[in-house]
C-alpha cells in the first residue's frame, strides 16, 4: 500500500521583508509553511544570522568573547568590518552608550556612530537603541534620519514609544522592530497600532524578547510557533518575520560567564554551545533574523541552516 505524504493546506503566509540596499540586500520571511517543510509550501528565504556591535567597549563581556574581536572593540566601524569577515549576514549595532547610566551619548553623536558603521560595511544593518524607552524615541529618530534611504531595521519600538519611531521609519524608509515581552497578545496589538500609522506589514519585525537556553527558551519557542501558525492560517497581524536577540541574552547566563570548572567543563566550548543551541532552537521555531555575539556560534548556526535547507557545506 502506497504511503500518501500528508500535506497541510495553509491559507496564509509570512510577510517578506527587504533589508539593506542592492546589490547587498537581504530578504527574510515569505514562508507559506512551517520551518523547513518545503514539501507543503514555499520557503523562499533562509533565516539570516548577524553579529552584534556595541558603540562602546563592553565591560561585562567574558574574556573568551572579547578576545575574538581584540582591539576592534573600541572602534565600532572596525568591529563591524571584523563581523563581516567572520561571515555575518548583517550587523546589529547596539547604541548602549546612549543610556543615561552609561555615557548618556546624545542622539546626534549616536547617529554619527551609526553612519560610520553603515559606511564601513556593505551588509544590511539593524540598529538598536539603548533600551530606555524615553531616550530611544529621540535617539532612533535621529538614527533614522542619519541613515535615510539605507533601509535599516530599527528598534526596538514598544507600546510607549512606537509612534515617534514608526513615523521616523516611514519618513526615512526603514523597517521597524516591535518588541513585546513574551506575550503574543501584546505582539499582535503592537503590530496593529504600528500598521494603523500606515507602515506596511512587511516592514515590521516581531521581537518576542526571547530567553536563552535554560532561562525561558520554551516560552519564546512556543510563542514563535503560535505566531507562525497564526500567520499560516491567515492572521495578518502576526504574519511578520521574527528577530531573536540571542547573543545579548546568552552571554548574561552563568553558564556562558563561568570560567572552566570540573562540573561544567571548558568555558569557551560551553559558552559557544549555549549560544548556538539557543540559536538553532529558534531557527526551528521560525526565527528569521538571529543576532549572535560569538563568531564560532555564527558559524555553527549557519552550518545548521545550510543543512536544513539542503545546501551543501
Amino acid at each position, binding site marked *: 500500500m502506497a504511503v500518501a505524504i500528508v500535506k497541510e493546506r495553509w491559507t496564509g503566509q509570512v510577510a517578506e521583508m527587504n533589508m539593506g540596499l542592492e546589490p547587498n540586500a537581504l530578504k527574510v520571511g515569505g514562508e507559506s509553511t512551517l520551518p523547513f517543510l518545503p514539501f507543503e509550501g514555499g520557503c523562499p528565504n533562509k533565516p539570516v544570522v548577524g553579529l552584534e556591535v556595541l558603540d562602546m567597549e563592553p565591560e561585562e563581556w567574558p574574556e573568551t568573547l572579547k578576545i575574538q574581536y581584540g582591539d576592534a572593540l573600541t572602534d565600532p566601524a572596525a568591529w563591524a568590518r571584523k563581523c563581516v569577515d567572520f561571515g555575518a549576514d548583517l550587523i546589529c549595532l547596539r547604541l548602549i552608550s546612549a543610556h543615561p547610566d552609561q555615557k548618556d551619548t546624545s542622539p546626534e553623536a549616536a547617529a554619527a556612530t551609526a553612519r560610520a558603521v553603515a559606511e564601513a560595511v556593505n551588509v544590511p544593518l539593524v540598529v538598536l537603541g539603548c533600551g530606555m524607552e524615553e531616550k530611544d524615541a529621540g535617539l532612533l529618530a535621529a538614527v533614522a534620519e542619519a541613515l535615510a534611504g539605507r533601509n535599516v531595521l530599527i528598534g526596538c519600538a514598544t507600546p510607549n514609544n512606537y509612534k515617534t519611531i514608526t513615523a521616523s521609519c516611514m519618513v526615512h524608509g526603514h523597517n521597524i522592530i516591535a518588541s513585546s515581552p513574551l506575550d*503574543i*497578545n*501584546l505582539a*499582535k*496589538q503592537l503590530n*496593529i497600532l504600528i500598521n494603523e500609522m500606515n507602515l506596511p506589514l512587511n516592514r515590521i519585525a516581531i521581537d518576542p524578547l526571547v530567553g536563552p537556553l535554560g532561562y525561558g527558551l520554551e516560552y519564546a519557542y512556543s510563542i514563535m510557533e*503560535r505566531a507562525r501558525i*497564526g500567520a499560516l492560517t*491567515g*492572521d*495578518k*497581524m*502576526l504574519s511578520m518575520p521574527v528577530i531573536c536577540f540571542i547573543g545579548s541574552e546568552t552571554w548574561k547566563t552563568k553558564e556562558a560567564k563561568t570560567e572552566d570548572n570540573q562540573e561544567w567543563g571548558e568555558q569557551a566550548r560551553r559558552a559557544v554551545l549555549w549560544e548556538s543551541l539557543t540559536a538553532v532552537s529558534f531557527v526551528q521555531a521560525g526565527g528569521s533574523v538571529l543576532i549572535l555575539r560569538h563568531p564560532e556560534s555564527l558559524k555553527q548556526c549557519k552550518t545548521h541552516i545550510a543543512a536544513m535547507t539542503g545546501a551543501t557545506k
Partner: protein
Amino acid sequence: MELIGERINGMFKDIKEAILNKDAAVIQYWAKRQEEKGAHWLDINTGPTVSPEEQPAVMTWLVQTAQAASTLPCCLDSTSPAAIEAGLKVHRGQALINSTSAEQSKMDIYFPMAVQYGARLIGLAMNEAGVPKDAAARAALAMELVVNADMHGLAMEDLYIDPLVLPANVAQDHGPEVIEAIRQIKMLASPSPKTVIGLSNVSQRCNERRLLNRTYMVMCITAGLDSAIVDMEDDLLVDAAAATEILLNRSIYCDAFLKTFRQR
C-alpha cells in the same frame, strides 16, 4: 466564523423595488455596507416576486451589481438551478451555492454544478419528507450529503451542511436538536464538512429577535458552527461572533479583537 450577509434578498421591500426598477444603487449600498460591517459573503436572493423565467437574468444582474461594489464572494440563494448557474457564470471568485437538499434528484444537479464551477455548496439536512424532527435524523441526512460530496469529488471543506433552524416560538424543541446535530455533523468525516445555519429563522415572529439570534449563534459556534446567514446590521451580533472566536481560541487575542475580526 464566516458571516453571510442576508440583506440582498427580494423579500426585503427595498431590494424587491430595486430589482423591479433595475436600481443598482440600492444593491450596491447593501453590498458595500455589509462588507464594511465584516461580512465574508453576500447572500443573493431574487425573492418571491420574480417569476421563474426571469430568475436567471435577475440573479445575473444582482451578482454583477453587488460584485461591482464589493470584493466579497456571493452566496447564490435560489431554488432554481437555472438561476444558480446563471449566477455562477458571472461570479468573480469562489461562490457558495445555497442550496441543495438531501433529495437525490437535487444532489444530482447541484454537486456536479459545484464541482464544474469550483464553487462551495450548502446542503440542507432535509429531503422530500420535510424537516427532520431530531438530531439523529438530521445527522443521517447530513451523511447522505457527505457521501454525495465524496462521490462527486467535492472537497469536504467546501460542503456546508445546514441542519435547519426553526423559530423558537413554534418549534422550540428543535433548538437543542440543531445544536446536537451540528456537533454530530462535525464528526461525520475527516476533514469535517462545514456547517451553516440561517440564523434569523430562530427568532421569526418572536420578541427580542436580536437577543435570540446572538445567543443562539454563540451556542451553535460552541457546538462547531462554521458560518451563518445573518443580519449584519446587528453590531452586537458581530461582536459576539468575534468574542466567541477568541474564547474558543480560534484566533489569537489582542485588545483590538473586535476590529481585527471585521477586517479579516
